[in-house]
């Protein structure tokens, strides 16, 4: 499925990462109008003061996500499912709008060099350059305006800074007078700063591209730089024609818009039922979770507003705001309790005996506790707040998303000798959810001295313990395996011969390493794999060929790691395989019957080929009694410990089931009506994927981690296109346009020649074929997604690009 996300902010990145995490098979494209990959808008102030550059606040984006920058979306064509920008069109199966909002400006400042809004990285550069030696005027007293003011006051460059407040409050209209006075006092300690209440711009003089002078109610300011941090509007103009909108795009509580294939989250979305528009990162990520779950058809969740915690960490004071979703500014029953102490203010707003909001300045109240009080929605005793028992004892709350307090963090830092934000990751997720406190935590890490030697010792101790536990787990699995397969235990009688038959040559060690690496196991597992391999020889394997071409068997005997002679003589016991076994007719039937009888529940069944169901299954008959292929499969599969379907035909019928499916062929899973069949599609499957899967199953007596189509993730969770050796040419737009042309001789991208690598989930580019000799793209032909099953033979097996709308 191709999901296109419009927008270049935190929501877009969170959406893309979550999507790929939940469904690695989906194809995700982000279309953004900015020229930088998505970055964390919360840290824009840091860009202005140049403590960070845009690269350092860039968000972590899954590398599988495709990114289209400088593409401002102009319209949506819902009938052909495309979005259109000035330069390009992008088709989607599902579209998610996460365009956020646009800053408001009271008059048009396009082209004016000394005025700016404050929303993106470009504007930061403009502000940083523009304020030098100027009288800076900031319009807007909300969190954005205040944070900007705090940033600029630390800069030596502005000559003066004026904050224009239309009314008589700061931050929000319900902040107490005492709070306002405290904030104002803190800011105005700087003689360059002036906060003007009840003031606004009434006229301006513009000359060419510059505002020469503004007139406010109270004064005239010249030599100025003007910044609007006043308010924001949902950025949805491009969608108004095709989607139901009010202020934002109207969505239901699963974040779906009026078009079932289009979703909207974050500041651009407005809930239909109550008009709510998200403003905080936490709300945006909750909405993104809901949208992704709904879009993928997983568990159906709906978006509910939750208690929000905001922390404004500015240089000169700490600010905290906890708000219940039921808080109503205009509720006449609202009652404020104010507790002040020196430069600390705790402001509680209570309505109907329930805590609705808390605003704290330089407070040490346990915010998480307050949040819980709001969530419980029980009546409270106001006296409780006066007793000031809410101090957490763990310092201030640093990360409200992860509920991590300052003291806790310092302990983690010391214990693990953490010296950078990156090193913190294994121990705490603090600072990584909304990202607001990331800088704060970095500062905390820098300020906390650590003892490296002690920490190194602790670390090693912990790693050893972990490794020990891991190995213990694996040993337990092998023991479990031995108990389950008692017949395969080495006994005193054959011990010596059996051990002798495992020639522990260099080559053996090599392929053990190879398999360990291919299966993405830690190198320490090599010994365990080694042990597992010894056991393999004792497991009977039945390989049935049904409606097939023997291509997978032929491929299997081309196995390189290990080579086929070692494989069948030393490592596996291939007891029944029509292509290779010595006996025929009665002799081979006896072998089969004996395995089913004596090794019931122990043997592994590998099936190659489709199962024809037409003509009562009589398109295929096997054995002296003329049993149908279907009946034989059912008989042998019944008592198998595991059934592995190799090749695309066994997966879903493959080429044999291609239209018009003359013999009514289906895959093994469908023929048996079972969902526990391991699928290894491919035409043919790469033998390394068979060997790896066998090994995993036999070592651990459990399937390797499987995806939604029951294919082992270690082999099938990669898009051919992503790992293609010609991917660089795709990105550069270097395409082969005709067989044998100059591009073909240079090994350019085969997309225009119908390569279906972008639709194929296989590990071919990594492991290649015939001992890594080549693969279809290297041979200049391109991929046709042979592992996709029958659809490959109906839609992909050609040398033409897919029509845009036809693929999933």
């Amino acid at each position: 499925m191709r999901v296109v996300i419009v927008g270049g902010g935190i929501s877009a990145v969170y959406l893309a990462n979550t999507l790929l995490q939940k469904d690695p098979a989906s194809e995700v494209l982000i279309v953004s109008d900015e020229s930088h990959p998505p970055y964390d808008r919360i840290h824009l102030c840091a860009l202005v003061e140049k403590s960070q550059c845009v690269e350092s606040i860039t968000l972590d984006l899954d590398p599988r996500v495709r990114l289209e920058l400088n593409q401002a979306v102009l319209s949506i064509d819902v009938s052909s499912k495309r979005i259109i920008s000035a330069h390009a069109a992008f088709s989607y199966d599902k579209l998610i709008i996460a365009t956020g909002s646009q800053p408001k400006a009271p008059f048009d400042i396009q082209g004016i060099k000394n005025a700016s809004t404050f929303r993106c990285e470009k504007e930061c550069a403009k502000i940083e350059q523009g304020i030098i030696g100027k009288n800076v005027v900031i319009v807007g007293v909300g969190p954005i305006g205040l944070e900007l003011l705090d940033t600029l006051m630390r800069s030596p460059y502005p000559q003066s800074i004026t904050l224009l407040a239309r009314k008589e409050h700061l931050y929000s209209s319900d902040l107490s007078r005492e709070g306002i006075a405290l904030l104002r006092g803190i800011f105005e300690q700087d003689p360059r700063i002036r906060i003007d209440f009840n003031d606004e711009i009434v006229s301006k003089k513009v000359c060419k591209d510059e505002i020469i002078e503004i007139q406010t109610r109270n004064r005239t300011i010249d030599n100025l730089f003007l910044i609007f941090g006043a308010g924001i509007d949902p950025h949805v103009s491009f969608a108004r024609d095709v989607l139901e909108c009010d202020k934002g795009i109207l969505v239901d509580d699963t974040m779906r818009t009026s078009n079932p294939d289009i979703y909207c989250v974050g500041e651009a979305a407005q809930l239909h039922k109550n008009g709510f528009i998200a403003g905080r990162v936490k709300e945006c990520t909750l909405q993104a979770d809901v949208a992704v779950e709904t879009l993928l058809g997983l568990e159906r969740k709906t978006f509910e507003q939750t208690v929000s915690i905001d922390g404004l960490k500015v240089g000169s004071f700490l600010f905290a705001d906890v708000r219940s979703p039921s808080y109503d500014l205009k509720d006449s029953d609202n009652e404020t309790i104010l507790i002040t102490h020196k430069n600390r203010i705790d402001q509680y707003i209570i309505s109907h005996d329930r805590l609705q909001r808390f605003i704290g300045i330089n407070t040490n109240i346990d915010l998480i506790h307050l949040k819980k009080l709001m969530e419980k929605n029980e009546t409270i005793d106001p006296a409780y707040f006066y007793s000031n028992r809410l101090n957490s004892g763990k310092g201030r709350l640093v990360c409200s998303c992860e509920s991590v307090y300052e003291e806790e963090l310092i302990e983690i830092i010391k214990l693990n000798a953490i010296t950078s934000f990156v090193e913190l990751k294994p121990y705490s997720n603090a600072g990584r959810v909304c990202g607001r406190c990331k800088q704060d935590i970095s500062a905390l890490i820098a300020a906390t001295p650590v003892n490296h030697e002690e920490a190194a010792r602790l670390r090693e101790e912990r790693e050893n313990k972990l490794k020990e536990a891991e190995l213990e787990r694996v040993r337990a699995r092998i023991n479990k395996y031995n108990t389950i397969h008692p017949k395969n235990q080495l006994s005193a009688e054959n011990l010596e011969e059996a051990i002798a038959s495992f020639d522990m040559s260099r080559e053996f060690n090599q392929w053990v390493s190879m398999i360990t690496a291919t299966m993405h196991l830690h190198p320490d597992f090599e010994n365990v794999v080694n042990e597992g391999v010894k056991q393999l020889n004792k497991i009977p394997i039945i390989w049935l060929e049904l409606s097939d071409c023997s291509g997978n068997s032929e491929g299997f005997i081309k196995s390189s790691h290990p080579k086929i002679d070692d494989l069948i003589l030393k490592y596996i016991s291939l007891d029944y395989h029509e292509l290779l076994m010595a006996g025929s007719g009665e002799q081979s039937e006896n072998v089969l019957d004996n395995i089913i009888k004596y090794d019931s529940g122990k043997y592994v069944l590998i099936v190659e080929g489709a199962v024809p169901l037409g003509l009562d299954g009589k398109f295929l008959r096997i054995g002296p009694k003329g049993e149908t292929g279907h009946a034989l499969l059912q008989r042998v599969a019944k008592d198998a410990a595991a059934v592995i379907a190799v090749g695309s035909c066994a997966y879903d019928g493959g080429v044999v089931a291609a239209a018009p499916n003359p013999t009514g062929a289906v895959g093994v899973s469908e023929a048996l009506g079972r969902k526990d069949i391991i699928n290894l599609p491919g035409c043919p499957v790469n033998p390394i994927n068979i060997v790896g899967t066998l090994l995993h199953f036999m070592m651990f007596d459990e399937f390797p981690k499987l995806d939604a189509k029951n294919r082992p993730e270690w082999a099938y969770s990669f898009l051919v296109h992503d790992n293609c050796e010609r991917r660089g040419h795709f990105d550069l737009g270097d395409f082969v346009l005709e067989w044998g042309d100059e591009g073909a001789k240079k090994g350019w991208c085969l997309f225009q020649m119908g390569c279906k690598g972008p639709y194929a989930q296989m590990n071919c580019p990594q492991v290649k074929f015939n001992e890594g000799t080549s693969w279809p793209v290297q041979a200049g032909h391109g991929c046709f997604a042979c592992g996709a099953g029958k659809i490959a033979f109906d839609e992909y097996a050609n040398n033409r690009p897919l029509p845009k709308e036809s693929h999933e």
Partner: protein
Amino acid sequence: MSKRKIVIDPITRIEGHLRIEVEVNEENIVTDAWASGQLFRGIEIILQGRDPRDAGLIAQRICGVCTNVHYRASISAVEDAYEITIPQNAEIVRNLVTLSLFVQDHIIHYYHLHSLDFVDITSALTADCSKAVKIAQQYHERPYRNSEGHLESVKEKLNSFVKAGRLGLFANGYWGHESYRLTPEENLVHMNHYLEALRIQHDISKAIAIFAGKTPHPQNLVVGGVTSVVDMLNPQRLNDFMFLIKETRDFLERAYIPDMKMMVKAYEESIKMGEGRGSGNFMCCGGYQFASKEQLFESGVLTGHKFDEIESFDPSKITEEASRSWYEHDLPRSPYDQKTVPFYTDLNEDGTLKSEGKYSWVKAPRYGGKVMEVGPVARMIVGVVKNSKVIKPYMDRFMKDTGMTLIDFSTTIGRNAARAVEAQICCDYLFDFMSDLIENIKYYDEETWTKYVFETLPSASKGAGIFEVPRGVLGHFVRIEDAKVANYQVVAPTTWNASPRDATGQLGAYEESLIGIKLADSERPLEVLRVIHSFDPCLACAVHVIDTKGRELSRYKISAS
């Protein structure tokens, strides 16, 4: 005189689902035989209505063993229909891949699919290694991996394998059967090469993949040429290819050919008795031309072992009929017009074939009304008869070394001998094709594709791709209407050899060759397997049908009785 019927199903160590039924008299001599293909897939029906340019990738899936040749024949049939001549380089690259496949196929066939009919592993375990070294030296002065130490380690490997419990693939073989003729030492020499051959076939597959992307199911052909131009222009890749082929040639010279001579000697009596001899009708279409205008294989048809009466091969004399096959139309027709409707008459209640009626999914192709045997033996005999500069010297040398005459090749052992000689010829001449390629590139001919504009090609046409492939003559026939495949038909080598009876009662090649075979032990019919395996059956290739009306097969009626 009472007769008994023996059913052998599945025939293992072949590609596909084949059943053989034989009738034996009191002396356990085969008096009648039936060969039956037991799987029907209908790939041609799937091909109908598709873009002719796409046919190759689907037709390729007819067989994963003869994997490259159906791909090539299909693409060539479409090129023939559109009268597209491909560049020389493309032809050479195609030949390099196909001939490497011949070599690989013949090696796998002899050692892994066939040799266990002659080689007794249990006997090899009792071999005296120093004696074995000397015995191998009787057939070549430097036999392949023939040190005493190495043979000891092979024996050790087999020994520990047997003692450790499970016999895997070797379980329930025909070990100890009285018709095994090799001594313990000769068995050991063969088992040694059985294991080495596993590696060699793996290495040849690497050579094939250099130009074909992968094998089985290569992906390097398109209508008009080949795609692996980067590999073709890379000297390192050409060098790697030559290196791998050289290693293979070494194996053929020092293992495959000497082992075959050993086999001919041990089974001399069987050869002279004519065990496995068929009708003596052989057919070849020839092909694989060098720059020097010579070609690798000659074409021609001869009947009844009359080696002095050879006629030229004329594809229009090929017909197919289905009077004893599970299809409706019984009259012989040309493959372009073949219009067959499945008509499944089932098996008897005890699971045996209805040997008086229809009994196989394989149809009966005939040449001028006659049954034909195709494959290496046909090519080698026709080559000698036509005095081929390529084939005759190799055959003369082999006959001189073994004392065989031309008619001796028309036997079970003889088919194998012909196959071994052919493997060596193909391998040696790969070097000639490679030097043709290098010559072209040296003079800046880098063409790999002939340009055409599909939309301007005729919307109706027909064409054929007929090739010598490892098991014999392969023909793909395509009829195009409205720029789509209207009719598709394949006549594969095994269709010829595994053919059932026809309306006149002529037995197919397998069937004919089984008559008169004496079984030592009717419970373990090893002699039957030998005859059948000597043809190298490939049943996935053999079963084909087309219904031009595109009816659904699953709705076809099943006869009541």
